[in-house]
């Protein structure tokens, strides 16, 4: 116990103070009620996000603002690493790998559109983050590559070389990037699970649980997406499932796939772990597209519940660090959502439902 206190007391105090400064729910409702983007940014001026209001004032470009938000999100991790107990550092770096992989997936998308789909390159190239997150990745070489055959060489000296080489033939054969993207996601969660398993026992339980929940919801989301948009059989999807889920694994996943509604298996899981959220299942929409958005909202509710649990729980664990990241990610995501709702001139009422 004394080791836990020694390990986490400083970071616990620091992060609790930071969490208390996270923008409250009402702020986002007020922001969603603003009639124009300019007024939304005016509201942000009195918050720690005044810097992004300056970017909008200088450029009028919401994508530049989003790029800055992404940089800030990554900086949350990089700035905190020096203050972390060494046991937690590797796990946090594994979380940062997630941002690197997302960015890499964006760059692969640009390459693929350009080279395989022969589409003229779009604006995405301007908003690609080229800063180093964990590794120095050859983004320019990738987006300027002229054939799939170049990929293994480009990634040869990176941690993603083996994954890219493994899927090169499949990308060419299927003319689809999806197998590689799915493999990168699996790689990310493998890193996370590996690092979580290296933690001391109490931390390990918390970290594995949170990673497991994230994997559960991602798997459910994917299954619904494949079923809704691609009408694939379960046998084709099962190979893409990310291992390491917490509750929705094996047969439960199959049941989610086979049931017309999300209700039965997911309600069982929610009833067991999140009784307050389970009540939401009664309101799930019938339309497939809306149901995907519903799952997203469910994920958010579960994350909020997990943050609250971690904050109430024993303070000297890795939980406070993970709760902080989850809370900040949610805060930034909400800002992004409201701003995009403002750009698309969504009514304040509709914007409020997206929060």
């Amino acid at each position, binding site marked *: 116990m004394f080791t836990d206190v020694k390990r986490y007391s400083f970071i616990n105090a620091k992060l609790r103070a930071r969490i208390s400064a996270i923008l409250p729910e009402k702020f986002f409702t007020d922001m969603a009620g*603003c*009639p*124009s*983007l*300019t*007024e939304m940014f*005016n*509201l942000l*001026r*009195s918050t720690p996000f005044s810097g992004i*209001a300056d970017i*909008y*004032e*200088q*450029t*009028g*470009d*919401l994508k*530049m603002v989003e790029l800055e938000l992404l940089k800030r999100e990554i900086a949350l991790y990089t700035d905190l690493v020096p203050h972390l107990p060494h046991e937690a550092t590797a796990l946090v770096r594994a979380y940062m790998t997630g941002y690197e992989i997302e960015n890499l997936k964006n760059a692969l998308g640009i390459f693929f559109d*350009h080279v395989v789909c022969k589409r*003229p*390159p*779009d*604006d995405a*190239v*301007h908003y690609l983050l080229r800063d180093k997150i964990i590794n120095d990745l050859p983004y*320019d070489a990738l*987006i*300027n*590559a*002229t054939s799939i055959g170049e990929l293994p060489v480009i990634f040869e000296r990176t941690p993603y070389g083996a994954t890219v080489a493994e899927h090169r033939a499949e990308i060419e054969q299927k003319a689809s990037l999806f197998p590689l993207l799915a493999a990168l996601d699996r790689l990310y969660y493998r890193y996370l699970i590996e690092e979580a398993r290296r933690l001391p026992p109490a931390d390990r339980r918390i970290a594995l649980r949170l990673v497991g929940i994230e994997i559960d919801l991602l798997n459910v989301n994917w299954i619904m997406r494949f079923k809704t948009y691609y009408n694939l059989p379960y046998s084709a999807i099962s190979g893409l499932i990310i291992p390491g889920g917490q509750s929705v694994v094996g047969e439960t996943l199959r049941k989610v796939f086979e049931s017309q509604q999300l209700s039965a298996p997911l309600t069982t899981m929610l009833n067991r772990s999140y009784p307050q959220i389970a009540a939401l299942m009664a309101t799930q929409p019938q339309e497939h597209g809306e149901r995907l958005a519903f799952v997203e909202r469910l994920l958010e509710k579960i994350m909020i519940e997990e943050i609250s649990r971690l904050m109430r729980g024993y303070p000297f664990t890795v939980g406070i660090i993970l709760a902080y990241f989850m809370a900040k990610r949610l805060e930034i995501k909400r800002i992004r959502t409201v701003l995009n709702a403002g750009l698309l001139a969504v009514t304040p009422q509709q914007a409020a439902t997206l929060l």
Partner: protein
Amino acid sequence: MFTETMLRLFAIVSERNGEQVTRALLELGVMQFITISTLEGEAATGYRDASSLSADRAVQLGELRKRLESFLGSSGIVPRIPPAVTAETAHFDIGEERRRIDTLASGLQGIRERQRIIQNDILKYSEIRRQIDLYGSSMTSGILHTDSSFISLLIGTLPLRQAAAVEEELSRIPAVSLPIGDDGTRRHMIVISMKRDRSRAEAVVSAANWIPVEPAAEVRGAPGDAIESVNTRLAALRDEQDKLQVQSKALITDRRDELVDSWVRLRLNELYQNVQSTFRRSSHTLLFTGWIPASKRHETEQAVAAATGGTYYLEWLSPEHVSDLREEKYAAPVKLHNPRIFAPFQMLVTNFGIPEYGSIDPTPFVVITYLTMFGLMFADLGQGAVVLLLGIIGRLRLKKDSPYAKVSSLLIWCGAASIVVGALFGSLFGYAATRPLWFDFHGIISGHAHPSAGIRSIYDILGITVKFGITVICAGLLFNWINLIRLRRWTELILDKGGLLGGWIYGGGVYCGWFMVMHGYRQLPGSATLLLLLGIPALLLIAHGPVHHAKKRHAVTAGNIATWVMEWAVELLEIFSGYLANTLSFMRVAGLGIAHVSLMTAFFTMADMVRCGVHGFSGTLAATLLIIAGNVMVIALEGLSAGIQALRLNYYEFFTKFFHGMGKLFTPVALRDNNH
């Protein structure tokens, strides 16, 4: 010493005077209104609720006012209702105000859209430059590997007379056109664009009789020109972007007066509707109620009389006679009335909480305790003068309503306290420079205090702070008893740990501590004394649970008895350990004072070592710089630390004895903020 006495006003006026009364009360700005429709069992029966219309209107006005405020705020304009403006609200059209704000919003949004388009061009040119940087080196050999890049090259010639028009047209794509040379009738040119814009660039040049040529000879040396050309375009675009930003600010600043006037109209009408929304009406009369400081009773009566021509009925009730006072939302609000110079200390108090109505306002006591603690921890004539100077500079440079203005005032007070106590200890910038008026702090820390002096050792200094702590804690307990007597909470007065029994135990504990010190820490008072001072009050405390239970008239069960015993044991533990910790906590005052002197002594020792090691002017200069650096560091770190510790001692050792922060601040509806 106590919070200001408040009175509850119930007023009935003729409906035709409603507008004048509203304006008069707004001008006066001393009344915190209560929405009368929510009162129960009051004289409101028979009055119809017409408040919702005004409330809706107030909400609409409030939303518009906040929108306008956000625009003004983005240009650094903080609107205020000017002193000359009265509560006159005629000639107001909410539709017109809304249109004005919408026009402003769409004007700004239009500029942002133009900025977005320019930004898109900036990003394209930046990408072109990036790609040239990455792949353009091969252009020097005459070949550009455009296949492996995101940029596209068109090389060819076009008629000279069309060149200027084509260049202008290309810049809108955007694309860079680099003239390589003229042959009398045609211009040789390289056109660089993003690949996705290639077809657009081709369309522009094709329309101008473009003839493609082989690149080998023409593009030699082109990257430098291309980068220069891109840089020129980028600079022009950024310049344009800056101009648009200035233009967007000007959209507000150029219309500053008009927009501030609009804000004033909105604010006045919002306040007016806010007041009206609390009224209740019959066919001929209006009924309204709210809290007013007793000191403003006469002014209010005069204002209402003038507004109604004498046709009014007012009833004044003191808080103890108001039947709904027990409900928190109707409780009498708290107005603290301290001299303006105590504003920084009132800020410290309200930061902790608002005292309950009728209880002691600790602000004047905080002035004494905070400054004494700060002075003892940071006693230095010179360093205090620096802090005082910083405070004065802050007050002169900051606006009155700046949140840091009060902090500057606090610095002035702290600086002065530091100077006074510095004089008592004879300390100047860390030197024992003057004859101490009280005792030689430096001498005691350095071990060469005068043997005949009253205060001779660090233990004596610690003793002073412990005695000071006992005084502060006793004052806290005394304030608690006064508050409880005024609020008639007799059970708490007697049986609470901060009540008389708690005080009895604390007094006993202090006596026992003194007795031990007097007997060389080897002996406690006799058992009869211990029983009288600690045992009896401790035993009496067990009555707390049963008395509390009896007041609620609940039946007694075995479980209750077990709970009372447990609570009693815990309370005893809290009293004995808590009061001991509270008292010893004041030793930090001595601790920080000692650290302050020790740090300065360390810097002087280091300066002496430098002076001995480096002879001549350089040594003296280095030593002086070291002492200056030491003073700066001590002022910054020790000053901050002393300020925080003094605040902490006030909050946790003093306030917790009597101050529960349960009050609600008095917030009158007023044209101007006059509730200091």
